[in-house]
């Protein structure tokens, strides 16, 4: 019997298998739409019938970020139905007469007030009326809503009112999450949002989990430990703890981890009580698009291409990304999982497009200087966001590429590659073995 660990990250699947003292690793890229097929193909020839599998994934976070979840109702203290929306960050983040709230995983039309009230000290001032709840049940059924999040003021002091509503809706067949299930030290917004996202991601992740179960069963891997027991999708990830300052370098995310970092999740719509990945984001990430900025200098924009669609160097996109720039300037190291996706088809087009951008610079510099300038700006930006500690290790599929860029611009002091190729799945395996 061998132990098998699977990590489904944002764009890569990692596999680690331990037989006796030997550990083998594998990394493949995947797309969310064909996740099950990609996983099956990766496991074929790597795993064996009878393996004991433990799987973890980043998919709950990806589901929220890419808005892949499904409609959920939010029941809150009457009179505060708009409270979450009114506290959303604004976009764009510069002065503009056309501003909007950041996208949220909740529709205003599905926020309902419940006539209930709890005092700040946890005394019930008003209990929810079952007749009011029945009315809401009918309303939600008419709208074909199956998932409900509940967030009442001061439920962290006394969850009685929330529990009554949770029970009422569960008895009627709804999948329900509630704010009191999260850390009571958080104020209402982080708790409410956590209840909302738990509900929001449930349908999508349940479906993905079932697909994976089928794949594993087909391969005869029937002893399974998969995420999402009892519809709980967000939990601390101890296998993402590092003993030294570490930067994870992926194609569509760069994250830095400090030892013992608090896993508070700073989402695009606010801080959450649900634990995050325990990392800080570093920008720009390699899939951000290259564009001209206010000074008409070559820089990166806030937009990025989707990993599933791919950048130009995968023979797909039309606009150059930073990854294309790394490829065009010979800095990209084709590590496993990345190499298979690279295509020469668009190489000329990438250079032509980047050349076209460089012409706007006023013709004072040649194109190599301009591309070099952008590499320098990117590397400086990364370095400024990294922690000020003695040594930082780079891990992940793009780690050799990122180190190349730091070296190229002379900012590699104190930055090293991890001793061995790093696999999150191997960390999972270690924890399972303990």
């Amino acid at each position: 019997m061998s132990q098998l660990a699977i990590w489904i990250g944002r764009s890569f699947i990692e596999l680690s298998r331990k037989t006796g003292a030997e550990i083998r690793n594998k990394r493949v890229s995947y797309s969310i739409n064909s996740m099950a097929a990609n996983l099956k193909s990766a496991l074929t020839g790597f795993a064996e019938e009878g393996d004991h599998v433990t799987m973890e994934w980043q998919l709950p976070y990806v589901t929220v970020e890419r808005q892949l979840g499904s409609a959920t109702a939010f029941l809150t203290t009457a009179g505060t139905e708009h409270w979450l929306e009114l506290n959303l960050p604004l976009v764009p983040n510069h002065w503009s007469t056309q501003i909007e709230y950041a996208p949220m995983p909740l529709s205003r039309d599905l926020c309902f007030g419940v006539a209930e009230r709890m005092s700040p000290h946890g005394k019930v001032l008003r209990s929810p009326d079952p007749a009011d709840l029945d009315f809401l049940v009918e309303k939600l059924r008419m709208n074909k809503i199956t998932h409900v999040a509940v967030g009442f003021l001061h439920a962290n002091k006394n969850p009685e009112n929330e529990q009554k509503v949770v029970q009422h809706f569960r008895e009627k067949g709804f999948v329900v999450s509630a704010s009191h299930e999260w850390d009571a030290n958080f104020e209402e917004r982080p708790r409410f949002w956590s209840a909302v996202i738990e509900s929001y991601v449930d349908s999508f992740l349940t479906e993905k989990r079932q697909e994976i179960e089928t794949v594993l069963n087909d391969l005869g891997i029937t002893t399974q430990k998969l995420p999402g027991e009892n519809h709980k999708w967000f939990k601390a990830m101890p296998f993402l703890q590092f003993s030294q300052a570490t930067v994870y370098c992926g194609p569509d995310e760069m994250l830095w981890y400090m030892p013992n970092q608090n896993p508070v999740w700073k989402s695009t719509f606010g801080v959450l009580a649900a634990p995050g990945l325990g990392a800080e984001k570093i920008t720009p990430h390699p899939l951000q698009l290259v564009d001209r900025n206010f000074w008409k200098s070559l820089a990166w924009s806030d937009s990025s291409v989707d990993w599933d669609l791919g950048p130009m160097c995968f023979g797909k996109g039309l606009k150059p990304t930073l990854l294309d720039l790394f490829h065009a300037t010979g800095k990209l190291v084709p590590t496993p999982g990345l190499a298979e996706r690279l295509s020469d088809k668009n190489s000329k087009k990438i250079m032509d497009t980047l050349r076209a951008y460089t012409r706007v610079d006023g013709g004072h510099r040649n194109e190599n200087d301009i591309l070099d300038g952008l590499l320098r700006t990117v590397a400086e930006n990364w370095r400024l966001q990294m922690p000020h500690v003695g040594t930082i290790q780079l891990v992940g599929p793009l780690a050799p590429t990122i180190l190349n860029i730091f070296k190229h611009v002379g900012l590699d002091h104190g930055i090293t590659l991890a001793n061995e190729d790093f696999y999150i799945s191997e960390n999972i395996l270690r924890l399972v073995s303990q």
Partner: protein
Amino acid sequence: MSESLINTRLYHLFENIFASTPRAAFVTSEGEHLYIRGETLADIATLPTSAQICLQYLQLEDGDVAICNDPYSGGSILSSFTLVAGMSAQPGSARGKGKNLADFLIAVKLALKPRVTLSEKLDQEGIRIPPTPLYIGGQMNEALFAAMSSHPDFPPELKLSLPQEIKKILELRERLQRAIAISRFDLSRLEIKKLLRASAQQMREAVYELAVGEARADFEIGPKERLKLRTEVADGKVVFDFSGSDPGVTHHLTFQGTFGACAGALLAFLRKPIPLNSGTLSVVEVIAPKGTIVNANFPKPVALGMTDGLDVIANLATQCLSAIDKTHAVANSGSTHCAIEIRFNNGKRFYDRVHPGTGASAKQAGLDGHSLWWRAQLRTSIEEIERRHPLIYESVTLRANSGGSGMNDGGAGVAKTFRVLEEAHLVWSFTDSHHKPLGYGGGKAALGPEILVYRAGSELGPDGAPIPGEKIKLPARGEMKLHPGDRVSLLAPGGGGFGAKTQT
């Protein structure tokens, strides 16, 4: 290396270093503003001016820190304190002015809970601190700090946090020095002039994209308190001329406040991410006659002018710009935040306000419940407020039908109602002009602001609270006693609608 690339690199350096400091500026000792980051219109010009004035009066050296909040020395309102730290390009290497005088200044704003007062003079709005050396030669000036913090109006939260804030601004200075050295930026006067010239050139090009022309608008804040504005867009510059405006009665702004509101309006009208520095701001000219609403004389109180008044100016400027360039036109946004303060008998005070809705444009409806001119995130928690103060929020919601209708509707303002549980004293002051936020091109005007008090009735509701009794509509400013069970409703104005609504 081209100016555009250096500007880009330098901008990202500042964005990273100041990422956790939302209100900050980096200024040269010659008064050039290399970087400004703000959350309010006031920040745009007050932060760099505070820095300059501190240097002018205090001869700050590398590592020295000064504090000020005086609106007439570059500050905004008395509850906003600015810390200014001196910085050399490299530690111990000032650019040769004899001693180790700072080459650069870092200004950081510490915004505390504002006060709502009915003062006639600035000094009644709180403690006024002119530029004061607080941390000199690596040491806190303890005697001065003790004297300052023993003043009855000195905010107790600042007394506790100030040493930590000084540490933070000095850390920012160290990070900046290190980053500038590692990246080998040449920040000589000549280079800085070149960089700012490049920014000014790009900004002029952005303004050239606007239609050329002139427009006038006025706004009556109250009787004998009229604002007049003539705006002219020409030759890549924008002039905002307030000649003919009345002296302030309730609203008084400093020149820096007015400048920030006009500059902010232009930036918002252009809708582009534009870095703020002396170069980009050089296209803005503001004519604000001394002694009028827009350039008040000491000791006029500024609390209302430098909050609501900034929104009034920015909305008026946007109205003029919309008249000149119809392709970017936008309806008026709400101009007041209906600020109130409740003083409880235990000495605690509760401050609250509500966001107005924004005006609609041809492209989109106005935003509900958030001011166009206030980029700070609301960080309040209902639970925390209810724990700290004897009051209960009954609703925090969108004010129904408060946005003007139109082809695109204006945004709704916020409506908040809370019930006090103990005897208290209410003070309020807001811009209750007869001007409603105007629609544009056939769009309807929005509802104006209101503050209402509902006295507690004699009967109890289902939650045990007294049902509302007598309703009192409050005038623009005043104070009154509140009794247990009384409710206060703050109703923010909406934004104007855009275009005529088509019949379906």
